């Protein structure tokens, strides 16, 4: 039954996550806080880190990881493998269906005024959704077990500030994540 729900939840994400990888984060955040109990918010943060630093599109990586966690929670390793595959399939099937329908009238679709105006309204909404999820993730990471995690907050703020520097902007996320790991080990967080 879990796998059926898993497919359905990711099918919905594939259908409504407009704007690629980052747009799936609010949906995953919603799942982390749902009654399913597939993964926690903390696990979601780890999933994002791994997805950013391994090959492949981030959205796909996160879906596979979320599916793995969900399947693992009910059936161990085999469940994890199955869950990863099912969640990923759920995520991409709406894309395949929509694209195949649209492919016939590619130009007409992308220039259709209703499509254009719908996306004009959806894009800022996606920004609100991502902001909400990121706010939840950040506050949970900064405030753990009833206290502010000051060292974590300071590392995060330093990284955040450094990422504004033009030359550092082009660095790959994996580079920052490795630095974070090193800082974590040194400070024994």
């Amino acid at each position, binding site marked *: 039954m879990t796998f059926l729900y898993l497919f359905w939840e990711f099918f919905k994400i594939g259908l409504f996550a407009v704007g690629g990888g980052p747009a799936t984060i609010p949906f995953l955040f919603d799942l982390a806080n749902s009654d399913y109990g597939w993964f926690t918010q903390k696990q979601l943060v780890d999933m994002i880190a791994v997805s950013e630093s391994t090959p492949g599109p981030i959205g*796909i990586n996160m879906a*596979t990881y979320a599916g793995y966690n969900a399947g693992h929670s009910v059936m161990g390793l085999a469940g994890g493998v199955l869950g990863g595959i099912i969640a990923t399939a759920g995520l991409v099937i709406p894309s395949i269906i929509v694209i195949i329908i649209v492919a016939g009238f590619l130009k007409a679709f992308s220039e259709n005024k209703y499509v*254009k105006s719908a996306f004009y309204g959806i894009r800022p909404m996606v920004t609100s959704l991502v902001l909400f999820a990121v706010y939840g993730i950040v506050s949970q990471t900064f405030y753990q077990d009833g206290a502010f995690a000051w060292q974590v907050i300071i590392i995060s703020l330093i990284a955040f500030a450094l*990422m504004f520097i033009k030359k550092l902007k082009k660095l*790959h*996320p994996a580079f920052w994540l490795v630095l974070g790991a090193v800082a974590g080990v040194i400070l024994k*967080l």
Partner: protein
Amino acid sequence: MVKNLLSLFLTFAKIGVMTFGGGLTMLPLLTKEIVEKKKWASEEQLLDYYAVGQCTPGIIAVNTATFIGYSQAGIAGGIFATVGMVTPSVLIIIAVAAALQQFMEYPVVASALMGIRAVVCALLSHTVITLAKKSLVDIVTAMIFIIGFVLCFVFDITPILVVIVGAIIGIAVNKVREVRKK
């Protein structure tokens, strides 16, 4: 036909392995593999696919793969290209997830993960800034953003509903603009 499908699968699997990050970072790689090597699309077509891939739901990399696969070998082509694109992700992530679970209990790994989480927060905050720069292009989009903000933070509505409300507002706003022009 079979050879064609296999070729689609392998080419996109290769792109999947070599992609770090997805989205826009993929474009140079796609140009090299799809336009220059395989000649499955012209550069202009690729940009068209890419543009449409961004305004249809789902992962942009997958949408683009489906487009190219479909244009080469119909529905089966679309499916093979997409399966090729996601196969490396599925294999790598499952391996990493299983390994990480084993090592999670070591204190060093726990410390490293805590540092990583701090950096993820910084990366995500920058993602929000990038999204805001791209999507908040005028007063109306800024207002839609604020409505979305209220829907999320005050009413805690599911993301799907928020997206649908966005689409409705977008269509309504442009209808009003049209009427005003007349």
